[in-house]
């Protein structure tokens, strides 16, 4: 079983990202589960969401404490949230940031095996005209982890957002896939 934890801020769509990733993996024939951690939700407050992907039905109903993959939608969270808490050895961290590998690593309490960086905010602003990075970051997830093919991510995005909005969001994910830089550590 692969466990993924998303860190975002209320309004950035971390919960939707977790759901779309689950839908994409389901299209690829996997068993999936996606859920939010419900705090007292306010726009801008730190939000956590989770996805589980497995080859067999998923019975467990707990939060994720030891993720294989951590996805950070908002770079400012690195300052305030221990995003690598519980990260498994050999884990992957994916961050939306314009900063360098060194600058990001400095903020992480645990060094991952793989660090993927992408400036998803710029991509979202350019493609969508809004700083909502949840679909763009999924392109980075597809590239950095290989747990789900980009084509299923794009399909799931287009199913979640209909019409032109879906096309744009899919484009954001595609662009992020191309621009994601992966550092093996």
């Amino acid at each position, binding site marked *: 079983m692969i466990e993924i934890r998303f860190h975002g801020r209320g309004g950035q769509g971390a919960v939707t990202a977790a759901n779309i990733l689950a839908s994409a993996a389901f299209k690829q024939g996997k068993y999936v589960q996606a859920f939010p951690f419900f705090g007292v939700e306010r726009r801008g407050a730190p939000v956590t969401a989770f996805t589980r992907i497995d080859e067999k039905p*998923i019975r467990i*109903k707990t939060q994720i404490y030891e993720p294989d993959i951590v996805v950070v939608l908002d770079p400012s969270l690195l300052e305030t949230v221990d995003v690598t808490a519980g990260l498994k050895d050999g884990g992957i961290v994916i961050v939306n940031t314009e900063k360098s590998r060194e600058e990001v690593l400095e903020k992480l309490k645990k060094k991952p095996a793989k660090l993927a960086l992408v400036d998803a905010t710029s991509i979202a602003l350019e493609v969508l005209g809004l700083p909502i990075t949840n679909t763009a970051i999924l392109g980075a997830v597809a590239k950095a982890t290989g747990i789900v093919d980009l084509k299923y991510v794009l399909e799931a995005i287009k199913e979640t957002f209909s019409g032109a909005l879906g096309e744009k969001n899919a484009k954001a994910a595609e662009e992020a896939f191309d621009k994601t830089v992966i550092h093996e550590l």
Partner: protein
Amino acid sequence: MTEYKPIKKVVSGNYAAAYGALHARVQVVAAYPITPQTSIIEKIAEFIANGETDIQYVPVESEHSAMAACIGASATGARVFTATAAQGLALMHEMLHWASGSRLPIVMVNANRALAPPWSVWDEQTDSLSQRDTGWMQFYAENNQEVYDGVLMAFKIAEDKRVSLPAMIVESAFILSHTYDIVEMIPQELVDEFLPPRDPLYTLTDFDNPISVGALATPNDYYEFRYKEAMAMERAKKVIKEVGREFGERFGRDYSQMIETYRTEDAEIVFMGMGSLMGTVKEAVDVLRKEGYKVGAVKVRWFRPFPKEELYQLAKEVPAIAVVDRNFSFGQEGILFNESKGVLFNTDARPLMKDYIVGLGGRDFTVNDVRTIARDMKKTLEKGKVKEEVVWYHLKR
């Protein structure tokens, strides 16, 4: 019979409930929004807005009114659905008796949520278990599939003329209501074969055979009304098993048992509980089996009617039962513990039983928690007696 090809969708527990109501061809919905149930009735409103159904949707000013409207609609012979949670269910309390006493087969989904104060929106079973004596059947779902299946079966059981009682399908706040999971949905024509339109015994709108609903019964009559209701709830056990078996034959998921057992064959210790936490318990059973513990799990699916006979059969075979109660009755103990001990009193089954109060107000209940309980229960088993019956498991000391 048309060949069954399921339609698989990744949906939340709430959407599973809404699809269940849609596929059951519900005719009237009256509801009031409350977290974490709201997206059930929002989804139903969306079905109506999209023209997928002609459900009569009655927006009301409170949950009390929601159930009142459901009662009126059901008395006309319509198939009626609603949903609520916690404070909303508590506000409905009076009307729950009116629904069951009038023998109306309304189906409701309750998203288990802890009661305030202190304010909480998270999972706990005390809200629905507080409605134990209202004459509603209660089914606790482990996952989103069971929410969907439960709604479909609940209508068939509730509307059966041997039963004619309302039913509550219970799902966990967030853990099911807002968690996305794969649900196998049944094509409409096959649901229609399983669940034909409601055929009511009496209706308010059958003007050739006028009836009154909610009239006065003097001490000369009231007692027999209650007896008939008690017998209907007893007969419901048989109907539940029949419908559960038929559902399994048609769609491959068998619900013919009121309890579900998991690896209990040679178990020394069995964990018993209801709802979503049982998924985690089953996972823990596999882990503990690998560690050498002889453990199993029992999920109580139907809390009303209570599976007395099934629990007796289990208790005869099992030396120790650890009940995991995500609920509490003040001045006594966990409610499932209380009920399950009670049914064994006049029998020869005497397992060691302990009650673990877990997960109140949505506190996470993990595989490691089950392992800790297993170790504690193992010690109890070795000593051969229960010293502390009720354990407040997560208490910060």
